């Protein structure tokens, strides 16, 4: 399994993503990929990490969306590669139109940085199959703009297609319907504000993030085995 961790100027969770992927995906090759890269062929999982790409100028994720690598992400996603956007990565994916909606300023205006309880409301995805349906997990958040918003029509679609994957048990940011993470209709692009890569060992206070990586590994193995046969 080949994993790309994208790096934009201002990304600051890229090394955490590399560490988490290396720790949890035994047979994976993990590479940091600079934002000017134009081809992501061959990568099975593309992680868009957290941070403050381009200083969050204009809007968070607005400028990163135009980086050359984002065309490559769209192409790879179209071909079925798994894309995981975390925090600023989620913001970038919505700005790029790979996921619907937008992330607005937290209603309390505060940058919230603490552990948070999430409910896995959709365990039937490539990213969450190792969790129980409606299981409550402990994953930290760290964001000032995580207030998910979309119009009513989009919300209906998200519900109808089971695209809401994680919700907060205690809403930290005013997010619509307590949404913490959503997936695209095809089921291969997931964006979430909480940081699973920061929850991969007891030393960090939680290792509930490990099973997200294990879920991805599982589908990759299944897919790979089919290809070999």
């Amino acid at each position, binding site marked *: 399994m080949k994993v790309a961790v994208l790096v934009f100027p201002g990304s600051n969770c890229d090394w955490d993503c590399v560490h988490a992927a290396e720790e949890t995906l035994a047979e994976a090759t993990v590479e940091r990929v600079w934002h000017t890269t134009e081809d992501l062929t061959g990568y099975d999982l593309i992680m868009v990490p957290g941070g403050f790409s381009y200083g969050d100028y204009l809007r968070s994720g607005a400028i990163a969306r135009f980086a050359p690598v984002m065309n490559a992400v769209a192409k790879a996603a179209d071909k079925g590669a798994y894309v995981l956007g975390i925090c600023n990565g989620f913001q970038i994916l919505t700005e790029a139109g790979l996921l619907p909606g937008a992330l607005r300023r937290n209603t309390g205006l505060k940058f919230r940085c603490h552990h948070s309880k999430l409910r896995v409301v959709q365990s039937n995805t490539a990213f969450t199959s190792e969790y129980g349906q409606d299981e409550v997990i402990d994953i930290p958040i760290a964001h000032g703009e995580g*207030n998910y918003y979309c119009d009513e029509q989009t919300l209906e679609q998200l519900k109808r297609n089971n695209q809401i994957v994680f919700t907060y048990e205690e809403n930290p940011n005013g997010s619509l319907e307590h949404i913490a993470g959503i997936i695209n209709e095809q089921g291969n692009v997931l964006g979430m504000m909480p940081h699973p890569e920061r929850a991969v060992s007891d030393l960090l206070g939680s290792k509930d993030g490990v099973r997200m990586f294990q879920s991805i590994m599982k589908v990759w193995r299944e897919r790979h085995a089919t290809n070999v046969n």
Partner: protein
Amino acid sequence: MFKVKVYVTTKANVLDPQGTAVQQALHTMGYGDVEEVRIGKYLELTIDTEDRAQAEADVEKMCKQLLANPVVEDYRYELED
């Protein structure tokens, strides 16, 4: 050469927590009659062209694709010679 003034505002049906905080501060100052505050962005662009129609078409695209996020923001602009 055109000077373009672009105004980006939060859509009416989207909450503006910053605006609410500023409104509360204004109330604390004694301006109790301030019913609502909405915070937006103001951008000035200088475009080096003589073709007004082209400049307008370009600014429209710039707004849609980058300067505003149509999911949560509205925009309007003025072109000055």
